[in-house]
């Protein structure tokens, strides 16, 4: 198995990680670094449970090879808080009850953070379109949309 060291800035901390060329970024985060907040749903780009920020843009970490991340910055759900306090997006999901089982939530939090950094005050249509890559089995999405609207209003 071809292995290599990669240097990745994960949630603000530089990490040197020994990876196999065939590992995905998702496997590296969960199994290599123990950052299990990022979830694996479909493993093929459809569900968004594995969404992280790669150099500031959302990506499905199940469709990123670990060595691709060498020299780059990764932000996972574990890195969204500010000094131990929930971010406005996380807080809004709690206040609106924008989750039930919570499996999809890390992906939604990362996608919402990215959405609001691009469109600070999105319409409901913009919210639904921009979160179309995140699937939720439980909520029916309405409370998620409300949580995004609350986060936009409290930013």
């Amino acid at each position, binding site marked *: 198995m*071809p292995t290599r060291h990669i240097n990745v800035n994960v949630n603000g901390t530089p990490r040197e990680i020994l990876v196999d060329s065939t590992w*995905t970024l998702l496997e590296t985060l969960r199994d290599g670094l123990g950052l299990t907040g990022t979830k694996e749903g479909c493993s093929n780009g459809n569900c968004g449970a594995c969404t992280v920020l790669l150099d500031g843009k*959302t990506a499905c970490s199940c*469709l*990123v090879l670990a060595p691709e991340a*060498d020299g780059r910055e990764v932000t996972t759900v574990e890195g969204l808080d500010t000094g131990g306090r929930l971010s406005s997006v996380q807080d809004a999901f709690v206040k609106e009850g924008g989750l039930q089982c919570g499996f999809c939530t890390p992906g939604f939090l990362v*996608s919402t953070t990215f959405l609001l950094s691009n469109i600070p005050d999105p319409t409901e249509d913009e919210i639904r379109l921009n979160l*179309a890559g995140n699937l939720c089995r439980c909520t029916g999405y309405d409370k998620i949309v409300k949580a995004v609207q609350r986060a936009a209003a409290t930013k």
Partner: protein
Amino acid sequence: MPTFDFAAPTTLAEAVTLMASAGTVRALAGGTDLIDQLKTNRRNADLVVDLKRVPELQRLGSDADGLHIGAARCCSDLHHDPTVNRLYAGLADSTGLVGSVQIQNRAAVGGNVCNAAPSGDTTPNLLVHDAIAVIAGPSGARRVELTDFFVGPGQTVLQKGEFLQELILPAPPDDSASAYLRFIPRNEMDIAVAGVASFLHIDPATKTVKKARIALASVAPTPVRARAAEAVLEGKVISASLIDAASVAAVESATPITDVRGSAEYRKELVRVLTRRTLNICLDRIGVSL
């Protein structure tokens, strides 16, 4: 997942050398097709070459030849680019339709082209803009018209060691516009049952069609131009009945299959309807009313 090695060249020369390595070598752009194909063992690889760090493959800018789109440049960048939106609107439409935001942030137009799925949403928009494919390889660069790039489903003219460096889209004239529509049963995140890209160049004084291009997705083994429909339009004064005639003619170029997404008959009907609608959007974008 097969066992493979990984390389990420930072110069074009290095990429050419690596791509010509022995064994099965796969180019990697956004990986939204390739990584799943590898995981499910639909593709093997001895070496995966990540082309995203090669500056030429990230190019996005215009010169006298037209707009250069580096083969690894992601859909999001094109979807939000002012020049793409102003001059190549159908490409802007389609880059905003590929999967989700997460997918668009990674998926390259070059990856969509090289994957050569008949359903690729961006490809017909490159065809209606007369795109040129610039191919890099061990024996130097060559240029191929994108219409001649596709051989069959998943098959292109690329030879061992060759890869797509960039696409060049000539600057469209004033009083022209393009548009893309696809039909899917959902609002997003689905594969086109059928898709149509149109381009029109109209003489505003006489309302004569100076140039027409129509290309179809998901209705043939490769993306195809609807040349019969183009011929119906060119040289004639644009009118609702001419658009209807062209839409009927577009169906002649569709040789669809029946599968879970739709029957052949249904796909042909979609081609007719989407051709009419995209031609009307082009007119709207040019500012010509019927």
